[in-house]
């Protein structure tokens, strides 16, 4: 019964999406000022639709919570013996459930926009809601016609098949919902961009409406990617934190586009420049979200051929993708010429730096897109190639390194026009730190080129990130500026972690008898014992490793090799010892014939900084949102803010340069 309520809610929501679309479009046909009787339904339709879609998701959550085995999805993906938390997270650990979550978030963000956004002209709002309804309708159709999550079994199953043990982890509770919320938050940016384009309202006040959505989506994507990377790191048991796996790339691509969009929309809001650029990035960002959904959800990644044999779902999403992306770019091509020119600016200016970096981000996006899609393309012609880190790392570094250098000096430049000589001191300082760090590191040993470059860039970027605060009264720096400083500093922190992991990781793989000791880095690792343990739906062997650093007090680590019985699968549960300067990563493997145990231990200096950096970047985004919202609430005029900033910069320049 509960499931049928969910299904009915989903159909009703789809019907309301049609109403929202028609009503929003009707408003568009009327001249400015005149009210269309149909146009008033768009907002309520969006809000009720959001409630219904969320209700549908809640009913599925309920079905998983009580393990209703008469529902096909529950029977094939859950198990009555699973811990409750994994029963709940299992709701989105499968195709249908995760698509329902996707649609639920899509509808909820549309509802939020309809309920709370009052600054936009009604026509633009109508067009935006129409586009949002159109997008939602496609995905409702996808769910209802080809992936019904509420499908019943003719005869209820006796027991469920269970959930992939790799997914039975707290990571699944956090990672997909965050990422989906980010993906789908970009749908609002997309709809707003299309709405503004259709009504020719591409201007700073539109940008200020769009900015919190872009920032919010970007923060969630950042958190989602960070969590996903850490999850892969500790769950897969080999200490890798980024694999350039197509699924990871599917989340990275919208992030790259959203990063560019976020900067572009800020320029539009502050300076009324980059109008068409912002619209294009808005379309691109959500296109990448949909492409990511297609890649992950169509089964095309497991095998292009399996996809070709059973193409129903995949071709449905591919069709939607073609319709939305193609349609959006067609409208863009037709209307972009009609968008009035924004303010112009010089090469050496903050806008110039932002444009440069947006182009670089787009280029990295192009490389990732190429490397992700090319193997799929050749596979369709029976040629199998692999594109992995040896391709992605250098190819993206070609664009990432200039981007990072420009990121270092960009925030120091003035808007509109500036002279390179004005930031001479800062530029020299950054260059000195960069070269000094590389020289220092090279003095101590031979390291691969990219990690070495990273070790030089990281401290230079860290110094550069703090330079915009120099000479300012810290109590009067706006929250949004703090956000930028923090986010850029986070990039440096993350880069430092990546470079250290690449350059200094120490690995020890060995077969050890109980009582035996292995050395990795400064750590002596002693295998004390190996004992069997059991959990709710698994059995395992657990090693007790006594780890002591430089002969200090030993700490016990307990990595496990788990065997799940439903579905039968073995996983490694790594044990981590976190210190301020890195992490010790221990895994227990199989028993060799002579009775010794395989253990794998890594010392990864500063590896945690990768994720601390990710968190800092996200925190920067949160501060920026908080600052912007506060400013918007105070209804300060952009002009006044621009004047304030100019005055501050002039004050900054008037001060003598401290000799440091």
């Amino acid at each position: 019964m509960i499931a049928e309520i969910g299904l009915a809610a989903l159909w009703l929501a789809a019907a309301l999406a049609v109403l929202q679309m028609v009503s929003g479009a009707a408003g568009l046909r009327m001249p400015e000022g005149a009210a269309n009787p149909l146009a008033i339904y768009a907002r309520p339709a969006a809000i009720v639709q959001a409630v219904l879609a969320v209700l549908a998701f809640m009913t599925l959550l309920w079905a998983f919570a009580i393990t209703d085995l008469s529902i096909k999805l529950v029977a094939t993906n859950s198990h009555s013996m699973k811990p409750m938390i994994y029963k709940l997270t299992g709701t989105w650990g499968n195709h249908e459930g995760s698509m329902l979550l996707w649609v639920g978030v899509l509808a909820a963000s549309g509802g939020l926009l309809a309920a709370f956004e009052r600054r936009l002209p009604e026509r633009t709002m109508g067009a935006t809601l129409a586009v949002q309804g159109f997008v939602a309708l496609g995905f409702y159709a996808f769910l209802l016609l080809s992936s019904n999550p509420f499908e019943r079994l003719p005869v209820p199953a006796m027991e469920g098949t269970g959930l992939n043990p790799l997914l039975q982890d707290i990571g699944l509770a956090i990672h997909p919902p965050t990422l989906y919320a980010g993906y789908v938050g970009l749908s609002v940016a997309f709809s707003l961009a299309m709405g503004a384009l259709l009504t020719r309202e591409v201007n700073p006040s539109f940008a200020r409406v769009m900015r919190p959505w872009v920032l919010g989506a970007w923060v969630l994507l950042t958190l989602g990617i960070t969590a996903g990377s850490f999850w892969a790191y500790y769950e897969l048991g080999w200490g890798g934190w980024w694999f350039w796996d197509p699924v990871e790339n599917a989340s990275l691509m919208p992030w790259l586009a959203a990063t560019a969009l976020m900067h572009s929309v800020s320029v539009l809001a502050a300076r009324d420049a980059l109008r068409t650029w912002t619209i294009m990035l808005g379309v691109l960002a959500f296109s990448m979200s949909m492409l990511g959904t297609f890649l992950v959800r169509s089964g095309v990644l497991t095998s292009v051929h399996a996809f070709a044999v059973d193409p129903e779902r995949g071709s449905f999403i591919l069709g939607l993708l073609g319709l939305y992306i193609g349609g959006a770019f067609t409208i863009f091509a037709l209307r972009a010429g009609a968008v009035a020119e924004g303010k112009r600016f010089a090469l050496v200016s903050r806008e110039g730096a932002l444009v440069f970096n947006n182009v670089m981000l787009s280029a990295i996006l192009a490389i990732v897109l190429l490397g992700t899609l090319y193997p799929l393309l050749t596979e369709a012609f029976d040629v199998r190639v692999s594109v992995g880190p040896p391709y992605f790392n250098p190819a993206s570094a070609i664009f990432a390194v200039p981007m990072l250098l420009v990121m270092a000096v960009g925030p120091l430049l003035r808007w509109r026009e500036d002279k390179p000589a004005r930031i001479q001191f800062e530029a020299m300082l950054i260059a000195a730190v960069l070269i000094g760090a590389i020289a220092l590191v090279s003095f101590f040993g031979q390291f691969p080129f990219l990690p070495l470059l990273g070790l030089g860039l990281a401290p230079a970027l860290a110094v550069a990130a703090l330079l915009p605060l120099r000479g300012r009264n810290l109590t009067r720096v706006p929250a949004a500026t703090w956000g930028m400083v923090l986010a850029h500093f986070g990039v440096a922190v993350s880069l430092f972690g990546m470079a250290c992991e690449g350059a200094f990781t120490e690995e020890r793989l060995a077969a050890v008898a109980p009582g035996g000791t292995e050395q990795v880095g400064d750590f002596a690792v002693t295998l004390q014992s190996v004992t069997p343990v059991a959990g709710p739906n698994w059995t395992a062997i657990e090693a007790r490793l006594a780890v002591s650093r430089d002969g200090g007090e030993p700490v016990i680590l307990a990595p496990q090799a788990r065997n799940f019985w439903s579905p039968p699968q073995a996983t490694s549960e790594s044990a981590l010892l976190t210190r301020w300067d890195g992490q010790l990563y221990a895994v227990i493997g199989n028993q060799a014939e002579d009775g010794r145990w395989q253990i794998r231990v890594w010392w990864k200096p500063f590896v945690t900084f990768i994720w601390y950096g990710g968190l800092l970047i996200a925190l920067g985004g949160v501060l920026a949102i908080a600052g912007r919202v506060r400013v918007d609430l105070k209804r300060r005029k952009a002009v006044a803010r621009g004047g304030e900033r100019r005055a501050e910069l002039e004050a900054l320049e008037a001060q003598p340069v401290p000799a440091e």
Partner: protein
Amino acid sequence: MNRAVFAMVMALLVMPLAGPALGQDSMPPAPYAYNQLEDPQLEAEASALMHTLRCLKCQSQSIADSDAPMAGDMRHQVRSRILAGESPDQIRAWLIARYGDYVSYEPEISATTWPLFVIPVLVILIVAGVLLRRLGKRRTDEGEGA
């Protein structure tokens, strides 16, 4: 030294057997599947190579990141061949001859992979073009049609 010689003998003995053994669960893992080489220099070479070889039984994992038995056998192959004095490039070529281009994460320029190298060059050109158009047109009075 003794161990190294022993390992080499082992490698020579195991090598002809490794073919049929690949991917079989029931066999115990080959000696170098989960053990490092004694010489840190050689181990570093082997490790760098292993990170660029695809585990054929897994989805998007290198053989250095996988518990699959086949990945273990391939790690053993890589380590024992490195120990026997082969260069990483020779080993990669041997693996490609055996399993096809698919096994290597490092695409080489060939009839099937040239777009992977041509398109980035095009991207660089497009990027340069866009930047010149956007940032280099200070004196003209064009609109902002990027």
